[in-house]
């Protein structure tokens, strides 16, 4: 009941916003807007709704709308990659831990606990500091920032989704149909694939949406701390770059903040919606 009432408005709004973001991320190059990193020296720091610059420009003369469109690609790209890779690895570890039990479970659980005992932001900050341009004499050395950020955020996602996968798999391995499958002589491997994995996936998907939100927030946080992507390349680094102009030209900071906030809200809503659907489905099984 709560489901049918909450679904329409929020779901439509969330889908619409995420749809816009996805289209911008994929087809942004074909939009009739300036390049995200082009400097328009004639129109530096113009406010909202200026001719040629719908959302204005910042004090470098870069177009804010173009930045948001390009930022959608960077931010969503980082989020999707980290969550997909992280949930594949974490999910595999979690399911194996739950199904094998014994020392395998102990080792994997210990890894999850260790990884989760460092706050996300601190872990990624250390990773970025160490692996990207580590040598002050030669800033080009080391891995590209985006790659380091994606890898470190993936490492953050693995234990989060791994724990979910493990606990979810644990509840399913105890179900009668698994016992039946075992008693009729199905191999453990095929039980895992036909009975456990399909049931674990929905709850991982629900948390996956939330995790994508976490990734976008952490990316923004890293940018504020000066450990983000190239200036202006993602939503986070846009607001980090323009933050000191908050009192003179607030739109340059507030617009990326709104983009991040809307995206995270939409992702959380999706996650919540999927979770409600799962609860609903499980109560009927």
């Amino acid at each position, binding site marked *: 009941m709560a489901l049918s009432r909450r679904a329409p408005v929020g779901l439509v709004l969330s889908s619409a916003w995420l749809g816009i973001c996805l289209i911008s991320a994929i087809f942004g190059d074909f939009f009739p807007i300036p390049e995200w990193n082009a400097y328009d020296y004639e129109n530096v720091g113009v406010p909202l709704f200026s001719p040629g610059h719908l959302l204005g420009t910042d004090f470098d003369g870069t177009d804010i709308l173009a930045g948001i469109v390009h930022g959608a690609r960077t931010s969503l790209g980082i989020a999707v990659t980290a969550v997909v890779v992280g949930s594949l690895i974490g999910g595999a570890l979690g399911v194996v831990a739950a199904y094998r039990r014994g020392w395998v479970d102990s080792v994997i659980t210990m890894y999850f*606990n260790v990884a989760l005992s460092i706050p996300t932001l601190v872990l990624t900050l*250390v990773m970025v*500091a*160490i692996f990207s341009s580590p*040598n002050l004499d030669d800033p080009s050395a080391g891995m590209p920032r985006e790659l380091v950020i994606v890898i470190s955020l993936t490492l953050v996602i693995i234990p989060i989704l791994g724990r979910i996968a493990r606990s979810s798999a644990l509840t399913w391995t105890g179900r009668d149909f698994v016992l039946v499958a075992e008693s009729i002589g199905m191999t453990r491997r095929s039980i895992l694939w036909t009975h456990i994995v399909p049931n674990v996936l929905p709850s991982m998907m629900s948390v996956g949406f939330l995790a994508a939100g976490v990734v976008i*927030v952490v990316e923004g946080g890293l940018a*504020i701390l000066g450990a983000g992507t190239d200036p202006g390349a993602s939503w986070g680094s846009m607001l980090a770059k323009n933050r000191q102009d908050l009192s003179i030209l607030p739109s340059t*900071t507030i617009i990326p903040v709104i983009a991040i906030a809307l995206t995270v809200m939409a992702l*959380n809503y999706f996650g*919540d919606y999927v979770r409600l659907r799962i609860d609903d489905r499980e109560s009927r099984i």
Partner: protein
Amino acid sequence: MRLRVALKILARFATVLVIVTFAITVLVRLLPGDPISILFPFATEEDRIRYRGELGLNDNLVIYYLNWLGSFITGDFGSYYSSTGDGSGVPVSDMLGVALPRTMLLMGYVIVTSLVFAIPLGLYLAYRAETRVDRWISNALFALASLPNFAVGLGLAFLLGVQLNWLPVLGYVPIADGLGEHIKSMTMPTLSLSLGLIATFSRLLRVDTIATLKEDFVTMASSKGLSNAWILWRHVFRPSSSTVMTSAALNMAALIGGAVIIESVFALNGFGMLLTVSIATRQYLAIQSLIALVAIAYMVFNLIVDLLYAVVDPRVASHRGT
């Protein structure tokens, strides 16, 4: 029996701590390039050799780690080196003395503020569950809970700091310099971290309270003619609060991460700033010690959660068989 449980918890605690700190040591030592040329770019060759010895960079990984662990446990958190000074370094514990109280004050304010607002709100929403008021507020809280705290912080800085000019946007004022100014400087940082938590806590409390309200002892209390407010506070709140307490303790730990960003947004120069600056300037010993402290704090809060479970709702302990 009690002792065995305590020893088990302690052993787990120590294991995780050793793994975390060793992993950080490996990461820090993995750094390509010579740390000395980053810490002391203009040091002479003799000084370089001396610093290498002082930082233990000549030792192998395990010995380096054990040395660090030994001094960490005895309260020596290493030194913070400045590239312009004489190279002797400032003890990290001195810097912590300045930074830590600010962060702990901030976290204290945040947790108190969020609970003070969230508890009455959650109880009220549960009491009015499924009414129009509940639906509107609950949806608003859902949105609020998903806002990143730096978004709230920047929004507040724009609104209260720039537009209305009520509060200072940057800087920290110690209590000694006037309580009013101190509160002014801490209001926006506290609010940025609290608003999301208020939403999270009241949503959790609402759900648990709705469940408690269906229990027989509530019907009993209400049939005795007790007032609704009395029932909510005296009978319903305690058994409904375990999830909120868990979440509060867990969020205390997560707040360290949030505090790093908010301290940076509002220039508070607390623990988070110290960590950020240490990482940016590659202060190996400082980074290792600071992250170890974070991990310890995190684990302690987790421990508190487990203990709170049993204290707040004795039924939980028997249900969970611990």
